[in-house]
């Protein structure tokens, strides 16, 4: 399958910096998939995100969006329309004092006729469940609501990909849940490719693919369960793994023989209980 976003040996260094923020990244994202990129601060994950719609251009190598090179000025608008981007601070990406006018900003920039803008704005707001708030002032909304407005603002461009750069970092648990479930739904129902950049391990569990970054390199890449299996490696990178896998890993280290990759809490408890019962039986038999 052709990749919707493809990095070809991308190296990137910020001007006035003495080290590469991205070193030799080659990766492709499949259309319609839900991808999570995990890494702690300074791992290069935000820099990677900014390469995806031509805000930053590779120092070496190239980035292709639907086959278009981001370095080509002529395609810039089309690329940005294909790859919508949502940022960490909802306050700094909302441009208007009225929700629906903010959502209309992108289609207005694209020169779309006004009746169609109206339609797109209403649709986008309905998709994120903020339609009733269309006449509200954004600064009076909660963090999660603001971030959903920001997502609607991107949806109004009708993008194929949405890149979210730590969209939940400034939100409370309720707001985080709102945002994460919204993007999961968009990926499932609208077939939009999602690239979620985060440092919360629990937001990655339901992804189709998890990429772990460190020092500008991709260190682990695969299904979340396969990635989390590398408990020691994750720990080296200063990252959490799901509690269930952590417990099972520690028990196995102590000599138990339990399956290493279970994500459901209940399932994990059953395995441990079964193992305990078995041991009890063995003790009785002796």
């Amino acid at each position: 399958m052709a990749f919707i976003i493809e990095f070809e040996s991308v190296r990137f260094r910020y001007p006035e910096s003495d080290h590469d923020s991205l070193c030799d990244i080659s990766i492709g994202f499949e259309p319609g998939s839900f991808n999570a990129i995990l890494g702690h601060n300074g791992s290069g994950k935000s820099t990677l995100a900014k390469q995806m719609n031509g805000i930053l251009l590779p120092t070496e190598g190239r980035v292709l969006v639907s086959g278009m090179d981001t370095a080509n000025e002529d395609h810039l608008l089309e690329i940005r329309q294909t790859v919508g981007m949502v940022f960490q601070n909802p306050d700094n990406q909302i441009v208007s004092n009225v929700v629906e006018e903010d959502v209309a900003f992108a289609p207005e920039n694209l020169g779309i006729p006004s009746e169609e803008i109206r339609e797109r704005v209403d649709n986008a707001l309905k998709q994120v469940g903020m339609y009733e708030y269309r006449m509200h002032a954004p600064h009076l909304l909660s963090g999660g609501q603001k971030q959903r407005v920001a997502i609607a603002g991107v949806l109004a461009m009708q993008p194929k990909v949405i890149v979210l750069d730590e969209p939940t970092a400034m939100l409370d648990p309720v707001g985080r849940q709102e945002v994460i479930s919204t993007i999961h739904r968009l990926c499932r129902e609208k077939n939009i490719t999602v690239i979620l950049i985060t440092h919360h391990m629990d937001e990655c569990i339901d992804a189709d693919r998890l990429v772990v970054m460190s020092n500008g390199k991709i260190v682990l890449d695969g299904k979340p369960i396969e990635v989390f299996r590398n408990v020691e490696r994750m720990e080296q990178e200063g990252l959490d793994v799901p509690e269930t896998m952590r417990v099972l890993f520690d028990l196995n280290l102590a000599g138990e023989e339990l399956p290493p990759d279970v994500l459901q809490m209940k399932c994990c408890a059953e395995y441990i209980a079964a193992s305990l019962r078995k041991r009890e039986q063995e003790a009785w038999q002796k």
Partner: protein
Amino acid sequence: MLKDVTLGQYFPGDTVVHRLDPRTKLILVVLYIIALFNTRGWVSNGLILVLTLVCMRVANIRLKNIFKGLKPMLFIIVLTALLNLFYTRGTPIREGWIITWEGMDRAVKMILRITLLITGTFLLTYTTSPMALTDGLEHLLNPLKKLKVPVHALTLMMSMALRFIPTLIEETDKIMSAQRARGADFETGNLIQRAKALLPILVPLFVSAFRRADELAVAMESRCYHGGEGRTRMNELHYTGIDYIALLLGAALTAGIIVMKHFGV
């Protein structure tokens, strides 16, 4: 305490005043200001006062909000009133007093004039979304584009400034609380000491404003912003019947006030 500042805030609503074309409202405010500065007697002043109150009623703006906005201007209003009160020649209220009947008359009219001036502009910003406002301004200033004036850039800057007023006020509040928690004192001391105490607020505020501006620029670019060329609008501006009526009324009123000035009422 800073949350009270209502400058440039928009209260969404669905009244006749809200529905007027922003261009109409801008022209009306200009006419209103011209009329206000041409009032002389009590009749014309009273007329404008009543008109303003009616507009507020129609626009569903409560007096409370206007007073809130007036608060920062209180000093200027009081100062002008006092100056007029003491420095106007005429017949003293009582033998030997400096205060004259003419001074009283002028002071009251001055208070009324400044208050109405501010109220009029508040009526505009309270009932017009910043986007619509700048849109209207851009349309009205369009002829200047021929003189290579960057009208779109200027109006966009204005709308961004209005958009970020509440955000920056919130931020100032946070910084002040943080400084207060570490023992800063903003309330005591003379004017110079207090001004100095504000410096540790301004520096972080500026730093964060620049960072915000940077992030905003990236976010706008990500949403395909590329200048004013080829932009369309969701709510295209068009004049309706009410706009023509309002403009006619406004023009008639201003003309009336100017005529009244010549009769001294």
